[in-house]
């Protein structure tokens, strides 16, 4: 299969959906590639730096028959638009009794690891997950980047696409043609028996590498990629934990009230899964600080393979695999 980068996969998804449906329009202060050339200025709208009005405009245009894609660029910049997200986008359909659909896609980049300091290194998906009413995708591979973003654009609800910057250059196999990945279906990225590791975005890749390394020591790690955070395919995660009895969740957001917390809670509250749990659930997250600029501090703040491996060893030490 051909291989393309995560960034190219995202661009392809948008271009294909723009071709497929001329009600798809895009708004943002900048775009990758040259969509203007193919789709023209009516549909490709370079905007002033006014994220709040863009975010609300997408809802208005969505209710009037268009399918806007708003590119906030960094998730950082979406916070000036938070009212439109929290008080409008996430509530508008339910609050109005389902009178209208709001087929809007909000895109943004997330994550640290590039010396960009606190404001420009955020991964706050859990703040959006907490809101009832938004769907959320978090691709970790080029194939999913394309397939999930296409599903998001076709979805008739506001969907937020969190796109991890550190994955942009990652290259992987992506099927030709109309590759669509449904929302709400997790993927067992690597099968294993001793411990379940849920890895989000960039940290899926790190979890897989850690699993490779630990396989050499005879430790069998099952790695799961949730792919969408809302809806979250909790059953795939629970089934894995019922098998392995151990769970480690890895993400670069700080731990408090994070997606990792949520996954931990979903495991701990389910009777059958709780009953199968043989060790404490471990979260491997960022240190709870604004991501610092200086490389040694940034490295200390963010998770790495050593911390993932240590967490895996902790849960195995707590309840050793019978020989």
């Amino acid at each position, binding site marked *: 299969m051909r291989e393309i980068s995560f960034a190219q996969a995202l661009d392809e998804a948008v271009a294909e959906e723009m071709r497929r449906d001329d009600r798809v329009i895009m708004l943002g202060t900048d775009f990758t590639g040259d969509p203007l050339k193919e789709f023209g200025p009516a549909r490709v709208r370079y905007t002033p730096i006014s994220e709040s009005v863009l975010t*609300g*405009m997408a*809802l*208005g245009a969505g209710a009037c028959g268009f399918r806007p894609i708003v590119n906030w660029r960094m998730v950082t910049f979406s916070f000036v638009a938070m009212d439109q997200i929290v008080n409008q986008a996430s509530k508008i359909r*339910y609050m*109005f009794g389902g009178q209208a659909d709001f087929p809007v896609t909000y895109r943004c980049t997330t994550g640290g690891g590039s010396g960009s300091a606190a404001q420009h290194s955020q991964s706050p998906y859990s703040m959006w997950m907490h809101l009832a009413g938004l769907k959320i995708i978090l691709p970790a591979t080029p194939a999913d980047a394309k397939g999930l973003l296409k599903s998001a654009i076709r979805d008739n609800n506001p969907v937020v696409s969190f796109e991890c910057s550190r994955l942009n250059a990652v290259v992987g196999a992506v099927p030709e043609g109309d590759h669509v990945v449904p929302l709400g279906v997790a993927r067992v990225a690597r099968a294993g028996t001793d411990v379940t590791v849920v890895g989000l975005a960039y940290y899926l890749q790190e979890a897989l590498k850690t699993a490779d390394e630990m396989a050499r020591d005879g430790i069998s790690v099952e790695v799961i990629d949730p792919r969408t955070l809302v809806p979250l395919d909790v059953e795939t995660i629970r089934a894995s934990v019922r098998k392995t009895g151990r769970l480690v969740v890895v993400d670069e957001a700080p731990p408090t009230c994070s997606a990792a917390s949520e996954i931990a809670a979903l495991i701990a509250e389910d009777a059958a899964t709780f009953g199968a749990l043989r060790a404490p659930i471990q979260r491997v997250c960022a240190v709870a600080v604004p991501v610092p600029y200086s490389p040694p501090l940034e490295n200390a703040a963010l998770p790495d393979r050593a911390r993932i491996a240590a967490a895996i060893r902790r849960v195995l030490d707590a309840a050793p695999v019978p020989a």
Partner: protein
Amino acid sequence: MTPNRSELIEMLRKMILIREFDELAIRLRTEGKIYGAIHPYVGQEAIAVGVCAGLASADRITSTHRGHGHCIAKGADIRRMMAELFGRVDGYCRGKGGSMHIADFSVGMLGANGIVGAGLPIAAGAALALQLDGKSNVAVCFFGDGAVAEGEFHEALNISSLWTLPLVFVCENNQYGANNPVAAQHRVTDVVAHAGGYGMVGQSVDGNDVLAVHRVAREALDRARGGEGPSLVECKTYRWHFHAMRQTPPPETRPADEIAEWKRRDPIARLVSDLKARGLLSESDLERMHRQVQTDLREAVAFAEASPFPDPKDILADMFAA
């Protein structure tokens, strides 16, 4: 294009209906048949009616927390409005929204809004869609003098003007944002002063004169339909009642003589005397109209009361579109 007699009569009827709807809503809220907070539109009727008389059903509006008047003016059904206030399944939002979230997308009313200023971006988005559709439809955005202090006011005016969107910004300057007089919110109390900064036509009008509002709005709507972009229309008006009530109306904090002065400028009385002077309305026409309004409101209440409360089992309905 001045309105003809039947149009004028319909404007008057809607103004009376809006007033009586909200006077009734106050009583029903006091009796506990309505929940949460309500914000009566009484005193401002000329604005919603004057503007919406220039709109077709395919034109869109966005509204505010004080939205009942805009709903009625845009053609919403008062029975389904009342059912919504009563929290019933036949309400516009199936009981999920209440006073601050009434919407009727079928008549182009894209929703009241509990967030000051939040309707402006949504209206700009509707205007963008209408511009792309290219059928000369327009969007209108109602908002208060208080909303002018929010950043979204500025962002919406800026981008709409930049993109020549078919949009009319209608500021209902009722002299207060909650209990704060407009001079405690803005150094320049004429909101229209902002228009120039955006290269936009701005016009100020007596918001208690429905014909003046209609004329100015019509000009702005024509500009929007003709591809000349958005306008800022400031309507000076006054609310007769409190800002908001829950169980009971709160005490009045505004000067009594100010209230009295504005009540003398009653927009309904003004239209009535104007129509009478022009021989377009008789006292018995007026009485008949009042009776009809009361009948309609009684029916609306009966409709609402007959409608069941939502079934708690349906709590997840309407969450996500298929």
